[in-house]
């Protein structure tokens, strides 16, 4: 499907952070075992990973667990990290694998009613505004999609990755990612209507 929108090519909320020029050096040092360099990468990307996990699992506790597992796996895998690859893509790939592994133990998707009624995503005191209600509803709707659609929607519109980057993470080419994205948006529209 043709995408006439800048949004669909480069969506808002891009997750790049300032100081990218230092990232390759941090990665090099972290790969050599420098724990402080890894800590700097952790500080830089923690929220990105947490956000991805938050939208891909059903409750914040699980998002905490996934985030923790991602960084521990990344730490162990650092000596094998390929420097030419963006570090955040490396983390997203690990995150996706962690969620896939967890999904083998539990139901990967939820019904919309179940997801939105889940106690763990009830609005807290800080979630009483209309905007927060919409956020909760959107998250519940995203979680009813199949796992690949969830990945594409979260990586495209919440993580702000390009089609190419999403394709590299989920192992599909750009045109396939575009197709999945549009089908997922159609599904989301149905859920939210």
């Amino acid at each position, binding site marked *: *499907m*043709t*995408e*006439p*929108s*800048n*949004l*669909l090519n*480069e*969506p*808002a*909320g*891009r997750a790049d952070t300032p100081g990218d020029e230092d990232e390759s050096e941090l990665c090099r*040092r972290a790969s*050599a*075992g*420098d*724990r*402080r*360099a*890894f*800590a700097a990468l*952790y*500080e830089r990307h*923690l*929220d990105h990973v*947490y*956000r991805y996990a*938050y939208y891909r699992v059903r409750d*914040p506790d699980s*998002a*905490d667990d996934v*985030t*923790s597992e991602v*960084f*521990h796996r990344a*730490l*162990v895998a*650092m*000596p094998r990290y390929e420097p030419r690859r963006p570090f955040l893509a490396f983390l997203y790939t690990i995150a996706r694998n962690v969620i896939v592994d967890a999904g083998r133990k539990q139901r990967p998707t939820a019904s919309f009613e179940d997801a939105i009624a889940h106690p763990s995503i009830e609005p807290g005191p800080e979630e009483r505004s209309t*905007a*927060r209600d*919409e*956020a909760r509803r*959107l*998250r519940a709707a*995203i979680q009813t999609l199949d796992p690949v659609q969830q990945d594409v*929607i979260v990586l*495209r*519109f*919440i993580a*702000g990755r390009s089609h190419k980057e999403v394709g590299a993470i989920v192992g599909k080419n750009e045109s396939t990612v575009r197709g999945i994205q*549009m089908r997922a*948006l*159609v599904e*989301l*529209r149905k859920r*939210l209507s």
Partner: protein
Amino acid sequence: MTPNGSRVPSGGSVEERELLALGERIAATPHPSASPALRAQLRASLMSAPVQFAVAPRRWGWSALRPILAAAVILVVALGGAGYAAASSLAGDPAFALKQAAEEVELVSAPNEAARLRTLVAHSDRRLAELQKAIVTRPASANAASQAYLSAVKHVDDALKRVLSQPSTDARDDAAREATEASESHLDMLRELEQRLPEAAQPGIQRAIEVQTDVHRRSDELPPARRTPAPPKPTASPSRR
């Protein structure tokens, strides 16, 4: 309008425009961030995680194989359910003994006194991270955690004395310098922690501060750091500066 100022274009079909608007709604959703508790605990855990980075052995003798065998034992333990329980255990937990046994294997595999010192510093990093965790999640375990930390620090002190009794070499000086730098970092955290520790854990932490102060003072016995320091080692403390 998207959060970064882009606009939905006017081209495309009605359906496409509707889908784009939906994409914008998702992008504009207030996104959550990791909680401060997760941020702090995960960082401490990562900084003290017992990760063994591969180092090419100089020769294929028994001494070169020992770290590999030890890493294999640790891996087997870590992969098992008991290993998982041990890794997250705190002082006083039954599984804590398993964690200490794995650390003993690490220690035995150290090829020399400098490596033993580095290993013991890493262990003290873990004990400090556990103490921090105990204060937050299980205050009843804080006393046991402070005693475990004190024990670890005493081992560092003893190992540092042995290292400093040897002739000065780059390896010896680097290891000793890392230990004294770690002690400085630990002292900063201990002074902050002592304000929050329960009464029962105070004697242990006060004694630990004394021992760490002794460790730090031994930096006076070291020659000035070289201008081109060795690559950092993967045994940093929870918030080594």
